[in-house]
């Protein structure tokens, strides 16, 4: 054709530059780009159509926990669980296991950042789904936001100058959850230096933290129960730089005048390699070390106060030096719940831990009752059998 066309008028043989010959290189490039864009748009459309719709999660009907041991509890770990349906499913499984109590972590830095700006979305999801499943939430508070600590410090670092800010957050938390959360734990394992901002641990400073927080919390809700301590069981000898023996720390808390600034003691009761019945002994870490903490409470005039076990239990990793066999873990766990039921000074026994949102890829995974994929382990079924008998 040669790019020529007759116009159709007789005698008119003029060659006309037609569509197919006009600037062919420019048109070719434009066509390539246009086709590439078309393909991209098509791909995006296919993806959008094929992608699953967002999951609609509702609270569902109000549930109650069928539990033969009303003190049975478990520490859930929904702090880093972003998906609401997994929060709901976790609470459902906890209820089905027969556990009325959960301990959950509500990091200050996740909720109030920047200062004065609160995002309660995730916390509301956790609390509301837990309550809908009939669970009672014990809220652990801590985790300093970046704006409340110097640069290059860790989230467990809280300078005394910022205790009023923490108290303000606790006030806001208690206010927001009034009627929904009735127990809060102030900080975590302050007798370990890495939980104290890698500073020298100080029962006096922790006592001052409680003195700042307690009135703020009570001002928001006079009925709120403030749990203190949550000390890590350790046999650290006096003068150890990175930790203080939990029994020594607790006594020093009382010496610092903490008695009027908490309502109940939070206890961490890990059994390590010893059975649940192993007798309490200050020179041993075992489950019944909790009784030694209780003795200190009584000795300091706090016999009327209750205690809560807010962490504890056993691990069945095949290689960890502090682990036991799977069968032992199950037997010791069930026995621990039985023992807790006999302690009239104990309100709840929440062992560690129900499920992690993602694998820890270490021995920590062998503390859980359910895998991240919601696969219940045998220990879940055995506790369920015990708790719902």
């Amino acid at each position, binding site marked *: *054709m040669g790019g020529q*066309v*007759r*116009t*159709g*008028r*007789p005698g008119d043989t003029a060659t006309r530059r*037609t*569509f*197919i010959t006009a600037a*062919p290189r420019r*048109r*070719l490039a434009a*066509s*390539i780009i246009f*086709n*590439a864009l078309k393909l991209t748009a098509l791909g995006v459309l296919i993806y959008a159509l094929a992608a699953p719709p967002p999951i609609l999660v509702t609270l569902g009907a109000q549930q109650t926990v069928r539990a033969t041991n009303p003190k049975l509890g478990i520490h859930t770990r929904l702090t880093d669980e972003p998906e609401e349906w997994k929060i709901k499913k976790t609470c459902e499984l906890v209820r089905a296991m027969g556990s009325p109590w959960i301990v959950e972590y509500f990091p200050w830095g996740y909720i109030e950042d920047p200062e004065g700006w609160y995002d309660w979305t995730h916390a509301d999801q956790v609390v509301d789904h837990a309550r809908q499943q009939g669970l009672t939430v014990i809220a652990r508070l801590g985790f300093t936001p970046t704006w409340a600590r110097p640069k290059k410090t860790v989230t467990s670092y809280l300078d005394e100058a910022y205790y009023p800010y923490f108290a303000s957050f606790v006030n806001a938390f208690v206010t927001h959850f009034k009627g929904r959360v009735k127990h809060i734990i102030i900080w975590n394992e302050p007798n370990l230096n890495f939980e104290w901002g890698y500073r020298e641990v100080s029962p006096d400073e922790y006592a001052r933290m409680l003195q700042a927080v307690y009135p703020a919390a009570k001002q928001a809700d006079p009925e709120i129960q403030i749990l203190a301590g949550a000390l890590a069981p350790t046999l650290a000898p006096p003068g150890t730089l990175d930790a203080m023996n939990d029994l020594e720390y607790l006594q020093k808390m009382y010496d610092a005048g903490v008695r009027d600034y908490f309502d109940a003691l939070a206890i961490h009761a890990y059994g390590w390699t010893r059975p649940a019945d192993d007798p309490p002994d200050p020179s041993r870490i075992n489950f019944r070390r909790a009784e030694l903490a209780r003795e200190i409470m009584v000795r300091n005039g706090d016999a009327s106060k209750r205690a809560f076990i807010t962490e504890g239990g056993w691990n*069945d990793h*095949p*290689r*960890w*030096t502090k682990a036991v*066999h*799977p*069968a*032992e*873990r*199950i*037997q010791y766990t069930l026995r621990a719940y039985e023992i807790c039921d006999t302690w009239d000074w104990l309100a709840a026994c929440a062992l560690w831990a129900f499920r992690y949102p993602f*694998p820890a*890829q*270490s*021995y920590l995974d062998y503390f859980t009752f359910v895998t991240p994929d919601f*696969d219940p*382990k*045998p*220990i879940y*079924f*055995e506790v369920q059998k015990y708790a719902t008998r």
Partner: protein
Amino acid sequence: MRRGNSEQWTVNSKQSRVSRWRFGTLPLAIVALIVFAVFALVKIFAPPPKPDATWLRVLDTGELRVGIDPSFPPFESEDANGNLHGLDIALAEEMTRVWSAETGIALGVHYVYSGFDGLFDALIASQFDAIISALPYDSKKTQDIRFSYAYFDGGPLIVVRASDEKTKTHFDLEGKRIGVELGSSGDSFARKWQRRLKYDLQTFNTPADALRALQIGQMDAAFTDYIAFAEVSRPSTRFASGHASDIKTIGAPLASELIVVAVRKDAPTLLEKINAVILAMKKDGRLAKLYDEWLSVH
């Protein structure tokens, strides 16, 4: 006579076909060709990978540094004189023996002790070249780590009496009495299938207890790992009546618990060498001999 209209229509339809070709199909074809050509050229002319620095260091020093937690017999343990024994030790020694023959360089193994939890961090920090310590494969840990082919599967097996010719899979055990160690992976597996296959599940404190119950007819099958099976079926643990061990394993593990070697991701040559040895040992029976030697003896 006006022929222009039909002529013009004919010309325009031809124009349209040509236009679709030149401005539709042709550009796409050109783009595809260019992309293919680029990939082909890169593949053809890419230089071969250099041996990694870890492998070169092993050859240079004559030493493979192996991270190990010697607290897990029969894979690795230390005797009273501080000597290491176990399947992992034998495997590491075999690797260096093979490489020594291949390279003509005398290679040995230097063991670096570490607690199990610290093995990965120590490997990433280059405190040793490889972890050979009954290490379970972890598919989620491949950001910094590369894993070898498995040299052992510690997952639960179906164990039945030797006279049982009917059982081929766990489906054949529907309604039967199954013994497991409480809380074990065999227990997990059995519970998953219990509702559908109506297993009469019995739990025991140890896998050996489950296997002994099988031997004396209290169970129809047991789900335990190979090591427990090898231990119970050893002649020295046979019943006092003198009967030979009368249990056998069926099929592949019910759930894989692969045991592998780990190297850093920047050690592809070392990984290749390790895999080559493992594959060769599987093929020619050397690995099976190691199982007989180390997984059946305490």
